[in-house]
């Protein structure tokens, strides 16, 4: 039978490649590697898609995340891409915000840049646990809103949130600076031992704070007359 595609037998691939194609290809590959790391983390940490928010599970998850990203080469923009990918269910079939936040925190902490900006205004999901163990000499700026436990265990770095956060912000913070432009939820600074939290808007409630300072606007609200340090 005659080949109906005879007319096309001389055709090779004609498309020219421009640097944009290379950049995008490299971006996709990096994202794929980051995603694989995240999926590995979930497989180990979130059995049956359940992950309990506990001190020990966070530490363990962070340790696993560090291992996964050890050999990855990525930039701050790749981290932002990953955050967007969390929002798209076709790329990430299931999202558990706890491990996701820990993973992103690890990515930020080990990123080559000293200052990282994540534009997350269009990301619908509110990431929890972002800023975990942010080290000294690291500045993380988030344009958008975050979830619970933002800045948890902050370890000398600077976290700026151009938006609001939910509950347990700055929990277990050791040192460093956490600035939130709008509002915070309950249990702010719970277990905080050092560092400063500055809030542009309102704080719904404070947690059991051990040390450090918390400002609501210009006003120091911890420690002050009404709120004393807590001893666990």
């Amino acid at each position, binding site marked *: 039978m005659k080949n109906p595609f005879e007319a096309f037998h001389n055709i090779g691939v004609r498309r020219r490649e*421009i*640097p*944009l194609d290379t950049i995008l290809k490299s971006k996709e590959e990096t994202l794929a590697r980051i995603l694989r790391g995240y999926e590995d983390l979930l497989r180990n940490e979130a059995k049956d898609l359940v992950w309990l928010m506990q001190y020990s599970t966070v530490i363990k998850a962070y340790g696993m995340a560090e291992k996964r990203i050890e050999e990855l080469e990525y930039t701050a923009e790749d981290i932002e891409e990953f955050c967007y990918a969390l929002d798209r269910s076709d790329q990430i079939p299931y999202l558990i915000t706890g491990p996701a936040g820990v993973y992103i925190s690890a990515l930020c902490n080990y990123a080559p840049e000293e200052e990282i900006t994540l534009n997350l205004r269009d990301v619908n999901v509110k990431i929890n646990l972002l800023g975990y163990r942010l080290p000294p000499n690291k500045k993380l700026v988030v344009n958008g809103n975050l979830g619970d436990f933002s800045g948890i265990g902050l370890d000398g770095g600077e976290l700026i949130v151009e938006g609001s956060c939910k509950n347990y912000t700055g929990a277990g913070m050791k040192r460093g600076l956490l600035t939130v432009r709008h509002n915070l939820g309950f249990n702010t600074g719970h277990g905080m031992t050092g560092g400063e939290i500055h809030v542009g808007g309102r704080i719904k409630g404070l947690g059991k704070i051990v040390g450090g300072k918390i400002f609501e606007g210009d006003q120091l609200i911890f420690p002050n007359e009404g709120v004393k340090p807590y001893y666990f």
Partner: protein
Amino acid sequence: MEVKKTIENIWPKVRKKHLFPQIPVPEVVEGEEAVALEIKSKQLRISKAFCEKLTHTMKNEDIVEAILDHGISHYMYCPWDFHTYLTLYNEAKKVVKKKDLAQRATSSFVDVVSDTYCVRDKETKIPELYKNIRTTGLNEVLTSLYERIWGFDMGRGRGDERISRLSRIPYLERKRWRESVKKFTTIIQDILEEDLEDEQQENQRGQNPMGEHSLSDYSLEEIDQGLREFAGSVQDLQQFKETLEDLKEELEEQGYASGGMGRGTGNPIDADLLYYMKIAESYTLPIRSLPIEKTGDLYPYSHAPWEVGKPVSHIDVWTSFGKIMPGISQLWKRKEGETYGELEGTPDCLIVIDSSGSMVNPRERLSHAVLGAACACNAYLKNGARVAVYNFSDAFRDNKVIMDFNYEKERAYRSICKYFGGGTALDLDDILYLLVRADNPDIFIITDMQITNLETLIGFFNQIQNRVTAVHLGHNVHSSRFKEGTNKRSNISVFNVKNKVDIPKIVLGQINEYLLSSPTRH
């Protein structure tokens, strides 16, 4: 430089390169040195001054070809149509919140996409053109971006982090343009604001060397089509409204009015009305075609062999060769002819719509009740009938609109879209007043049935002969009572709608049945 002659020489080659766009031959205008191109309703106009300025650095043909490549790729690739432009504008506006900034961001994005498409997929001198144009502000940033993503040296240097971010956007993936334009706008937002400030201080608008994009790029038909598609694609009414409010002045300048094109600049655009009009256009019934009917006359239809016993008078002499013989002679079989009849006029329609507090405000969110009423209005007007509207909330407190039978679509839409948000009572005198002004009109009533004088309404419907379709939302004791009260009447159809999105289909389905059952006459 003979720009016109150059265009004539290279136009066939450029057309072929871009798969023969259906646009007229570009014209030359004196123009400005700073702006290469102007596009108005598909007509490309190249600035002679711009071309002459570059002749010492580039060949004439290359300059003109690059400009044409840019202009044509806007037509053939991005934005392609007005709907795409509106979609991109809408997304950009979500980031920058201001009309001016959103328009510039959209314009720049569209330029980047079109030029990148040309560079990757066609043989073009666009990179060389940008290399030789002096740019500042945002245009300078974009030229640095081009250098990075096209791989051409344009003497701008490596660029900063902003360029790095911009270069990671998938410009040539059409499906991702919505998110891409948002990212693009976010990254350039600060420069856009700076440029705008500078212009306000210098009191002079900055110029895009490759021309600005605006509504004048599109014809009225394209704008109409684009608005229709945009209304169907946005998530809610507010987005449509906002976008339309931003572009209202330009639309009115173009001569576009709510009722459609060419109605004159006297009718200001009402975004809500336009929204429902455009969405309702997606729900249409075909115009009734002429029915085939028997004429009552017998016509010769076909031949059959003549047999002994059959009438000799039916024999066709010609085909029988003049013989009367079984096996040779043929007779005519006659059949009743069929022809096209005429349609009985479609009855007029009275639309009764509830705009009490329990119904959705159509100017805040998409109201499927209003959409259903709009579909009914369209269907009857399209079939040559008139429409009256009775929009009620608490009619006894004058919360009502009574629109008499007429053919004016825009007037009907205004009446349908009116929202009172008060109590729910209708005045039967108003309905009676309207009913006598037409010959046995159909009645469509769309309500949630929480009407204080429901029993009176039931009694009224039980007395009239008009065809009544009642569409009610949700299931409650009132709707059950209505159904029970009217179930003996064959001229009343009641539909309980669980899912609001079904309202237009239900309305159209019923109208279709009515139209099909309308009698015909010879």
